[in-house]
């Protein structure tokens, strides 16, 4: 199954744009690492407390990091006129929005997943737990990025719309945060909560692109 040419073009353009932003794409990574590294300093050196809260702390850090660069996802396109061209294209706007959000996740979200095990290790998560945790963060992070993208599409025309994006997206983060935390709180294996976590992500990927398309049509109006 291959995507239509315009969707592939939008995907490539978004990848290039994210990298061309220089350090911008890695800003969430710094935010994620910074938040996780500050926690031991505020919670104190008690290893039992640290390892007990580590996975939860990383969920919070992941959720907030995903919002850091969300503002520019569609705003840049709106300003430079590219959004006009994409909206008028033959390809469904929802597919363009999907491609752009997925590209944004690849550049800004996937590095977080790669960094999560290391931060987990620093915070005292048992090494055997780390692969499972990384998968959970990967799955949950996708949902965060798609709901964040929805917020970004609604706030595309708003100057300094970062706060608005957070307000719109954070309620949608709740199920992922709950089932993500429950997944990693259960001792081992794939608990039912993990399936719910995956279901939340699939729901986000299925619904958010259509919501983004509607919002982007309003943004160019």
């Amino acid at each position, binding site marked *: 199954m291959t995507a239509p*040419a*315009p969707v*592939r*073009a*939008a995907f*490539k*353009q978004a990848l*290039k*744009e994210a990298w*061309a*932003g220089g350090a911008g794409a890695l800003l969430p990574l710094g935010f994620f690492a910074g938040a996780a590294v500050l926690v031991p300093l505020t919670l104190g050196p008690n290893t039992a407390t640290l390892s007990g809260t580590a996975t939860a702390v990383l969920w919070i850090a992941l959720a907030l990091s995903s919002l850091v660069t969300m503002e520019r996802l569609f705003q*840049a396109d709106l*300003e*430079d*006129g*590219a959004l*006009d*061209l994409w*909206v*008028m*294209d033959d*390809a469904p706007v929802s597919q363009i929005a999907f491609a752009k959000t997925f590209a944004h996740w690849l550049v800004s979200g996937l590095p977080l997943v790669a960094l999560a095990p290391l931060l987990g290790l620093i915070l005292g998560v048992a090494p055997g737990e780390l692969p499972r945790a990384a998968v959970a963060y990967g799955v949950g992070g996708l949902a965060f990025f798609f709901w964040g993208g929805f917020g970004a599409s609604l706030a595309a025309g708003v100057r300094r719309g970062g706060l608005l994006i957070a307000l719109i997206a954070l309620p949608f983060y709740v199920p992922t945060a709950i089932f993500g935390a429950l997944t990693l709180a259960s001792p081992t294996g794939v608990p039912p909560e993990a399936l719910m976590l995956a279901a939340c992500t699939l729901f986000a990927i299925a619904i958010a692109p259509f919501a983004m398309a509607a919002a982007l049509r309003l943004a*160019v*109006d």
Partner: protein
Amino acid sequence: MTGPALLTAQNLGVMRGERVLFRSLGLDLFSGEAVLLRGPNGAGKTTLLRTLAGLTAPETGVRTLNGRHHWLGHADGLKPHETPQEHLALWATAWGSETDIPDVLETVGLTRAANVAGRTLSAGQKRRTAFGRLLLIHRPIWLLDEPFAALDADGRGLAADLIAKHRASGGAVLASVHGDVPVPDAREVLL
């Protein structure tokens, strides 16, 4: 004026906030024709063009396009990191165009600036890139929002040339303009 109109607008009305920009506006655009939209700043020329392009939804009326259209707006659609060469290649892929990109770059006079990133291009060079985009694939209707803005004398001549060629090949142009423009035999619409 032979054949059916390429573009028809009937009873078009658009509001912005509490203000009526225009109402009961009718417009036909025929093959080979150029229509110039004139009016003071804020009269609604851009909004009318965006409505005809399908970007803005009108409050009343319908617009019918009898063919595909190209769009050239205030913002040229070029990314800060994109070079003219990359920009044209991207849209050529998206639209399935087989046009030779270096040829297009030469036509719009950007051979030397082909690999300069958008952020360092001048406004006129960006506008030339946008004109290059219109040449990637033939679409009969050109909707141009102030196409001559930012262009130097040579660029204006180039734009006039491209518009004339497009009309000669059966296309039609609807453009918002200010002042004297090198578009002969054009119909003018005052907003």
